[in-house]
Every structure is written in C-alpha cells, then in structure tokens.
C-alpha cells in the first residue's frame, strides 16, 4: 500500500481498502525503520494518529474532505507548525514551537492530510546537500536500493555503512521521506533549486510553483523574493493534486496573486506536435556528466520524434546567475536573520553583560558557519558605500536574467528542457570535500535562474545511471503556466517510465504490502 501513489491510495481510502489509521501506522512504522536516513527531525506521531482517527470518522460517515483526506504527508522543518517544534535545523531555533501554522500547512490539514512530521534540511535551507543541518546529514534512500547495491555489489546495509549518498538539498529530508515511502507527498522549499535538486537525486517529482501562486506565510524565509513552497511526490498527478490545494491568494502574503485559481487536474496529452520545446544552449556546460547529457539529448529526441518542435534557444545572461544570486541571497539573508537576537524566541546565550554582548554570543552560538558567512557577506553588500556596486547591480542583472526567459517564451517556446543537476547523487564523503558555498554554486547552476525569474519548474526523474542512481531533467514554463508545464511533464513521465525504487530488502516486513501493489494497480487501470 505504501508504494502506491497519492492518487492511488486516495482511491483505496475512498473504497475502504485501507483506513487512514492503518495507513498512518504503516507510515509511522516505516519512519522508525528508516530512522537512520535522518529524514525527519520531528515525528509528530501522536498528532498524526489523532488526525487519522478524525479522518477515519469522516470516511465512515461518507464525509471525506477530498483527495488528501487521510493521506500521510511530511513538511520541511522550515514551515511553521502550531504546537510542533520548528527548528530550521539550527541551534538558533531549537525548542521553538510556533503558535501558528504556515498557510500551506493549514491548507493541507484543512483537507484532512495527516502530518507525519517535520523533515531535515540544511540549516535555514542554506545548502545543496542536506548535510549542513545541526541534526546531521540526510541519507539518500537510493544508497540502500537494490538497483544501486547490485551495481556496487554490496549488501543492503553493510556494517560500516560508509558510502551512503547525499540526497541533495536543501529539502533532502522531504525527498528522502517520500522516496522511502514514509509519506505520499512532502513540502519542500525552493529558493535556488532546493526542491528540484533533491528530487533529482532521489528519483522524485520536485515542483517549484510560480512565485506568487503559493503562499509563503509561515515559511521561515531564506530569500523572500525567491522562496516558494515546493512539492515532492512520486508522480506528476500527485503534485497537481497537492498544488490544487495549496495554490491561491493568501491575505497574509501580499505577494500572492489575486484572482481565482483554476483546477490543476492534468489532461493526458496524446499529441505533442503543437508543442515547442526550447533547449537553452548555455546549459550545456563542460561540468555536465556525459550520462546526464546523453539523457537530456535523448529526451529532446523523444519530443522531436513525437512531432514536437525542438529548438535551441539562448538565455545569454545565464553565466551571471550564480554571482548575482550570491549578492541578492546573502543580502536578504543578512536582513532576514536579524530577528534572531535571542530576545523573543529561540536560543539565548548565558551572557548578560550587555544587550550587544548577548546578541553577539547568541548569534555566534545559534548559527553555523554557513549562515554566519552569508550574513557577513550580505551586510557587506548592503553597506551604503557598497549598495550601488553590488545590490543595485545584482538587481539589474536579475532583471536581465528574467528577461532572457521572457524573450524565449515570447519567441514561441512553450517549455524549456534542461538538466536538473550536473550528475547523480554523490557519496557523502565525496560531497564534503568541497565547502558549502562551492557546492551550492555548482549544484544550483541549472535551477537557480528560474527563482530569479519567478517561473514554475519541475524535476522529472528520467532513468537510472550506470551506477543505478536516478537522473532527472527539468522542465521550465512561463510564469503562471504551471498547469501547462505539469501537463507536458506528465506526458514525459509516461514516456520514460522511471523505475520504482526497490527497497524491499531494507523493509522486509513491508514486502507483503508491496507485493499487493500490482493487483491494486491493475484494478485501478480497469476503471
């Protein structure tokens, strides 16, 4: 049952083939079993069981709230949750229990979803590996998959367990949680690729909505002008279901767009001949692994062979994206982190000689090196004497980058097809050879320009590498054409038939559940 997609399990719930409580307990069992992945910071077992109980009552009365009623979900630990500790994987917020729910969390709960827990991340979402949080790194479930182990001729979990892979980040906990079947959908956040990057490394759909489509209220900010809540699921239709619940104007977030939101249910495309797919030439970089490059090219060929127009396009300012992002990101970080002073909430040091000394020590103890480094850089860029030379210039470059996309979409391109990451997930020990900043700069290369432009983008897992690890490709659409983008992504998903992760050996007592899957799926298809 846990191996199903959200939509499938939703049907099973409606038919009474499984109850919300059963589903919840199975997920909780699996969360415990996969604790070593470090996907969750907090497991909200009690609350989830209560929510399941309430959901079960609704089903019995025939008063289901909809597709999400009774569905276990997980939420990245930088979304505020009433009564549940929200840490941002930082010492600064250890013990901080928000008195309110983020709008997206509230919307999920209002639809009857079961909140299993809060997932791990890089501290304050600053990173691309989910390795730099105070609760330790997240392990990629694919490290323990049959597909990967067979290639590496290793046992599911060898004794020293030293060559595990990173999930990517910063929403690695959410990606691991969905990938390891502990929930059916998870919320990530995406500022420079933080949802799409781990989705690519964990073989998931990772969707970044248009900026302004989904409320940020309650999301503890990294870069307000680029942050969006992201969605991680195992198939595109599931993403559309969750997006349908989350999207829409929020009076508490003035940057969300007004007006009614259409349904995000996706039609099944049968004909792509009217589509124009753009291949940005600047994304073909020397660092791109040959395998990813080859898959990218095959994907383009697939569209081409099905009658779509595929053309090379140019996003000429792409190369300035990383440095531009660095200035804008750190500046907003410096500002956003100013509130963590130990006075109102979160960590406070023992020093009380003076307010200033208390601030300084609290912030030194509370933030890791990455966060402190970004605060320092950001404050430097915002200094009066530097503002024109850095911040203003970066804003101008940001506009040029955004205009690149506008120009391409105005030239008749419907969606862009690009790699999501340079290569598949790397082992942790290899990843930490480089510092966070270098890693982030390399890993965000294909994803981060999209955040500058506020566009919707989605990672679709395509195939396994020779090592048996997922490789994903990214589709980028025009602003607020999220549904159109997902429709194309869904067609592509159906073409590539990405294999399901095989964790049977890891979760032996769940294998009986997984064995039933095929029957259930067949019966679904007969509908």
């Amino acid at each position, binding site marked *: 049952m846990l191996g199903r997609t959200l939509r499938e399990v939703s049907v099973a719930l409606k038919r009474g083939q499984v109850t919300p409580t059963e589903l919840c307990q199975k997920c909780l069992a699996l969360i415990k079993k996969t604790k070593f992945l470090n996907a969750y910071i907090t497991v909200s077992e009690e609350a989830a069981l209560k929510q399941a109980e309430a959901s079960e009552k609704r089903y019995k009365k025939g008063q289901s709230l909809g597709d999400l009623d009774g569905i276990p979900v997980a939420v990245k630990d930088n979304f505020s949750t009433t009564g549940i500790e929200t840490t941002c994987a930082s010492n600064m917020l250890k013990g901080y229990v928000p008195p*309110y729910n983020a709008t997206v969390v509230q919307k999920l709960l209002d639809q009857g979803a079961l909140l299993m827990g809060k997932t791990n991340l890089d501290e304050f979402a600053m990173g691309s590996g989910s390795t730099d949080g105070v609760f330790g790194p997240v392990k990629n479930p694919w490290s323990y998959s049959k597909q990967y182990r067979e290639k590496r001729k290793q046992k599911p979990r060898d004794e020293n367990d030293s060559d595990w892979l990173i999930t990517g980040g910063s929403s690695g906990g959410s990606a691991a949680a969905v990938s390891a079947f502990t929930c059916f959908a998870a919320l990530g956040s995406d500022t420079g690729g933080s949802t799409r990057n781990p989705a690519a490394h964990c073989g998931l759909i990772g969707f970044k909505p248009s900026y302004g489509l989904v409320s940020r209220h*309650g999301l503890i900010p990294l870069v307000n002008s680029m942050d969006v809540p992201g969605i991680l699921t195992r198939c595109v239709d599931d993403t559309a279901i969750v997006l349908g619940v989350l999207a829409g104007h929020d*009076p508490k977030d003035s940057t969300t767009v007004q007006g009614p939101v259409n349904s995000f249910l996706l039609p099944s495309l049968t004909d792509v001949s009217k589509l124009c797919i753009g291949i940005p030439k600047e994304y073909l970089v020397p660092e791109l692994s040959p395998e990813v490059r080859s898959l990218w090219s095959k994907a383009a060929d697939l569209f081409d062979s099905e009658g779509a127009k595929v053309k090379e396009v140019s996003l000429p300012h792409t190369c300035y994206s990383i440095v531009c992002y660095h200035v804008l990101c750190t500046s907003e970080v410096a*500002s956003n982190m100013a509130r963590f002073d130990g006075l*109102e*909430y979160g960590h406070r040091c023992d020093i009380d000689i003076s307010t200033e000394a208390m601030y300084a020590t609290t912030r030194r103890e509370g933030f890791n090196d990455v966060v402190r480094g970004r605060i320092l850089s950001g404050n430097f860029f*915002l*200094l009066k004497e530097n503002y024109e030379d850095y911040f203003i210039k970066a804003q101008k470059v940001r506009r040029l980058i955004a205009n690149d996309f506008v120009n391409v979409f105005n030239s008749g391109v419907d969606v862009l097809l690009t790699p999501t990451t340079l290569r598949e997930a790397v082992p942790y020990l290899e990843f930490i050879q480089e510092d966070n900043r270098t890693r982030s700069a390399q890993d965000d290369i294909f994803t981060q320009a999209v955040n500058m432009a506020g566009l919707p983008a989605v990672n679709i897992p395509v195939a396994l590498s020779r090592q048996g690890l997922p490789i994903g490709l990214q589709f980028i659409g025009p602003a607020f054409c999220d549904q159109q983008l997902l429709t194309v992504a869904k067609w592509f998903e159906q073409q590539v038939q990405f294999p399901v992760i095989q964790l049977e050996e890891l979760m032996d007592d769940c294998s009986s559940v997984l064995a039933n899957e095929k029957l259930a799926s067949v019966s679904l298809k007969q509908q």
Partner: protein
Amino acid sequence: MAVPTLRCGFSGSRWTFALVDRGCRHRTVATFNWIRGQSSVAQQPLHTAQKPRKGAQEWAAVVGLEIHAQISSNSKLFSGAEVRFAAPPNSLVSFFDASLPGTLPVLNRRCVEAAVMTGLALNCHINQKSLFDRKHYFYADLPAGYQITQQRLPIAVNGNLAYSICVGKQQREITKTVRVKQIQLEQDSGKSLHDDLRSQTLVDLNRAEGQLRVDANVSVHHPGEPLGVRTEVKNLNSIRFLAKAIDYEIQRQISELENGGEILNETRSFDYKLGCTVPMRDKEGKQDYRFMPEPNLPPLLLYDSTSLPAGADPQQVIDIDRIRETLPELPSETRARLVQQYGMLPEHSFTLLNEVGLLEFFQNVIKETRAEPKKVVSWVLNTFLGYLKQQNLAVSESPVPPSALAELLDLLHTRAISSAAAKQVFEELWKSPGKPPAQIVSEKQLGLLQDREALEELCRATLDGHPQVVRDVKGGNPRAINKLIGLVRKATQGRAEPALIKQILEKQLSSPAP
C-alpha cells in the same frame, strides 16, 4: 493575525514628515501607526538669532523637522493587531508584531488613505507608485532587526503648508510657507522601559503610544555661506518643548561658534526640566542602516480617475480623487471663509480654529441667533472663552450650550436687556446650567426699563441731585454728560440703554426747569 485591511500591501501604520529650512536633511524614526513627514521652511529661516552685536556677523538658523504622527486607525500599519491608547503592555501584539519567523507584513488600507489625505492637505505630489524599504539596526524594541519604512520612494513628496502668524502690537498678519519634503508610511518600533535599579529593560511591543513625536535638525550659518553642521534633537513630544529646544539649540550653536568651538554632527535630547539640550549617549555609534527593498510588499499603487483600471474593485484599489473629494475644509480655507462671511478679524479666526470645538460652538450660536455676527464673535471669544480659560475647561465641558448663548444674544438683540444685564445673565447661566435666559431675566428683574416716564423721572432726580455737574455741562463741557449717564445707569442697575438716557438727559438739560 487576520488583517481586515488592504490586500495589496502590509501591517502597523504611520508616516512622517519633516519641516526643514532650506537644506532638507532628515532621518527616519520609527513608529507603528505613524505617518512620518519631513518638511522644510523655505524662504526665511524660521528662527534667526538675536540682533547681531556690533561688528558681529548676522547668523541664520536652518531648522528641519521630522514629524512622527500616529495615524488614527483601528489596527496597526502592517498587522491586524488593534491600536488602543494605554492598553496593558504587550496586549496588542500580533505574531507579526513580535516578528515571529515566517510572518509577513500586510498593509493597512486605512493607513494608506490617511497618508494620501495628509499628502493632499499639505499640497504634496502623491506618488502613484511608492515603495517600502527595510532599515536595519539592532535594538531591543525592534524585534525584526529592521523597520519597514519608505526611504526611496515615499507616498507623497514636495508639499507645502502656508501659515500665518500675527506679529507686533498691531497684530499684523504675515503668511509663511513651510516646504514638506516627503510623507512616508513607517512602522513604529516598540517601547523600551529601562529599569535602572535592576539593570533591566522591559519592552512593550504594543507601540504607537504617543500621538506626535518630533525630531528637530538645527544648524546655523552666516547668510550667504554654506550651511553649518547640523545637530538632531530627538523625541520632542510637545509644541512648546519643540520651540524651546530649537531656540536653545540655535543659541547654543551660535555661542559655541562665536567662542571658537565647533558643532558636532550628533544627536541630542532636550532636558525639559533644565530647558537645555544635551548630547545623547550614542547607542550604536555611527549607524549604517543598510537599507534594502522590503521584498514582502509589492509596490504600493494608487490610482486617480485617469489611471483607474476599468471595472476595478473599489475595495482593492485606492483612488486619490475619491479621497480628495472627502477632504474636509482645510483650516486656511475655513479662516478665510470666516473673515469673508462674518467680517471678523483674522486673529479672531485663528482663535476660533485653535481651540478644539470652538468653531463648531460659534457656528451653532450663529445658526440660532439673530444677533450680529460681530456680536457673536465678541461674546464667544471674550466672554465665553474667558470663562472657559478661567476654569480651565474644554469647549465640550462648557455648562452653557450654544442654544443658551444664542437665546441670550437674541434678548440683547431685541433690546430686551442691556449689555450689562446680559453679562449678569451669562454668569447666571454658567452657575445654573439649564435655566433659560428669559427666566433668569425675569427672576432677576434684569429686563430693560421700558417705562419712559419712570426713566424720565430718574433722570430728573439725578439732575436735581448733581447741580454742579449740570453746571459743568451747561458751562461748555459737553463730556460731563457722561457722568450723568453713568449715574442714571447705576440707578437703573444697568437696565436702561445709555443712548436713551442720553437723549432724555439732553432734552431735560436744554428745556427750562419746571
């Protein structure tokens, strides 16, 4: 934090503007529910130093004011939390006001409208697009570590306020103009309460406690020379202290410079007990506020009738022209109308407007009485206001309602009573509120002596009793008759009209004695 307000923007409210002489240099200070404005006095320096001593060069002072005025709104500029005076500390604090992570500002529509209206009243150019900025500094009562303000592109700019003052013995009226540099919406900081005994600081995040706060930037220079170094006197909360602080600061700077000293660019506070300014303990040294755009608030867009999108929802947009229509009559217009309509002196129009509720009282009396407007002005400004001042009462606390004064003035107008009797009736009205003037007149027998024969008899008796005065009149001193008139009035207890008395006396003096 549900915010029943504007959806295109933000939460707490205020604005600021400053009045500046020439060089407009101002800084921003924080407030929730405040408008902050910066204005400048253009032509003549507002304050000039005393007459130069012989041989000394003349000094000119330049004064710029940064005025923090609280917006009269039910909730804060960027949050739905209530605004209420003297509420218990931290009882009106939303999650946003406490800067909980993840909360976002939502602009209060009412505050935007108030800012636009203020801009219109001060003849400002209203920017149809304005922006919000973050101003950063660490302080215990600033929980976000920054304050949301409008540094780069404020809601209103380039205004002016003309005002008149009466000078000299003849109360000559001069009109002056203050330039308004900008009006900006700005979030209030919290309030720090220092407990020196326990070395503790308590922070109240309710904010918006004071109605008005002014920072004055002052410099002096010799006319024709570059402007002097400026100091900023902060946190002045009454007009009286503002004037005192500026006067003191100008004198201090002049004597400092004349004694070979120099003026430091510093912030000072005004010690209202000693009446002097003193340097403030510099909290954080020289500040770089690291301004940056507030990313959570889109540009604030306003419309006028030409730019209003067709079919726009009136709840979603702010129409400058509609606000202009609701603008009340401005004080200068009211004063001009009063002078023109009632023929009153300009200084009287000032008095009527400067006392809260007095204009309304005056207008209500005018509405109900047949008495001449000049008479009404005189009674309201002299008698009525005199009584109020003497007892330190506000107009709203007056025991005499406008209708009673109107009735009294009618009695006077129809010559039912004399002016002197009217004063007595007024005093009685004040003492026994609710008693109709006519009743007082009859009870106290204050009615004008209508019986001409009786009056003639009194006059005759007076002439008989004062032969010397009669001789004076007849001997060529016509003014001596006033003494006789006074004597007759006294005898009637003020109930007879002096003009009539004079007429009878003259007649009796010119006719031969019976």
